[in-house]
């Protein structure tokens, strides 16, 4: 159950429309290290976490990632606002216009559609938390690349906020891993199986 707030986590502003950059930043909407992948990965893995604290953390961060997906959606939508078919084509995004017009769709920067192959759930909490820490680093690096690719200070500001959230999430997943490893080391069971000691 979620409570929906009718405002973005943080306001999204742009200086000017830029369909060419929209084509690139869409990867944080539906790319392998984007916000949809992140939210579904965490909200799905929470069930097999061994402690309530770990479950709560994954639910919290997964929920925040949904809010980030909303911010990226708002950003992309603003960047293509007012762009006509020719503008989209000139920006290298004629395919987007042909299939979706100004509607959003989950793809990476190369147009590859989102796939569940981007996320994993092994059911081993240490393995899954390690995956999440890697995911946060990949998202951090992707934001760094995207910030390099735009000159718009407002867009940079939005992306820098999302970049910093990846750093914070890495710290939280790391602390969670500390906790879970300690918890597992005290148990006689591993993922439900009795361990021989």
């Amino acid at each position: 159950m979620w409570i929906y707030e009718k405002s973005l986590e943080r306001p999204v502003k742009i200086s000017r429309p830029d369909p060419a950059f929209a084509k690139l930043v869409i990867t944080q909407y539906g790319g392998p290290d984007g916000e949809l992948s992140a939210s579904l990965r965490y909200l799905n893995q929470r069930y097999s976490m061994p402690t309530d604290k770990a479950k709560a953390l994954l639910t919290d961060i997964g929920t925040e990632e949904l809010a980030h997906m909303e911010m990226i959606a708002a950003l992309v939508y603003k960047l293509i606002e007012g762009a006509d078919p020719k503008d989209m084509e000139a920006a290298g995004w004629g395919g987007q216009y042909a299939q979706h017009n100004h509607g959003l769709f989950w793809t990476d920067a190369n147009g590859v559609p989102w796939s569940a192959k981007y996320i994993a759930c092994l059911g081993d909490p240490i393995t899954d938390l390690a995956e999440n820490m890697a995911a946060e680093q990949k998202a951090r690096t992707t934001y760094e690349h995207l910030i390099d690719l735009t000159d718009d200070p407002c867009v940079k500001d939005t992306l820098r906020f999302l970049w910093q959230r990846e750093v914070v999430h890495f710290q939280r997943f790391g602390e969670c891993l500390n906790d879970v490893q300690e918890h597992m080391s005290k148990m006689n069971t591993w993922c439900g199986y009795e361990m021989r000691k």
Partner: protein
Amino acid sequence: MKRNVDDAQVEEKGERAEEKDERIEENDEQEELERDNMNMWNMNDTCNCQKTSAKMMLAHAYVPWQCYDEAFSPQEALKKGTLFPSLYGVYPIPR
């Protein structure tokens, strides 16, 4: 924090957005230097919250526990993406 007061004054004066952005970036750089000097990058084992060290096992990953000692104002936190000065600037901030 002194920075908050500075920022608030800049906003009150209603200076142009561009000038304000430059000012903020200058402040950020200054702050990074200050934190460098103050050794606030959490790279050393000086933190009292380090409760993992006693039971660390090979082939396991650990992250240092964060000390909740300082906080930005809510406005500053929303701008930067974190409430915690100790988590801001641990990776080079992309410009």
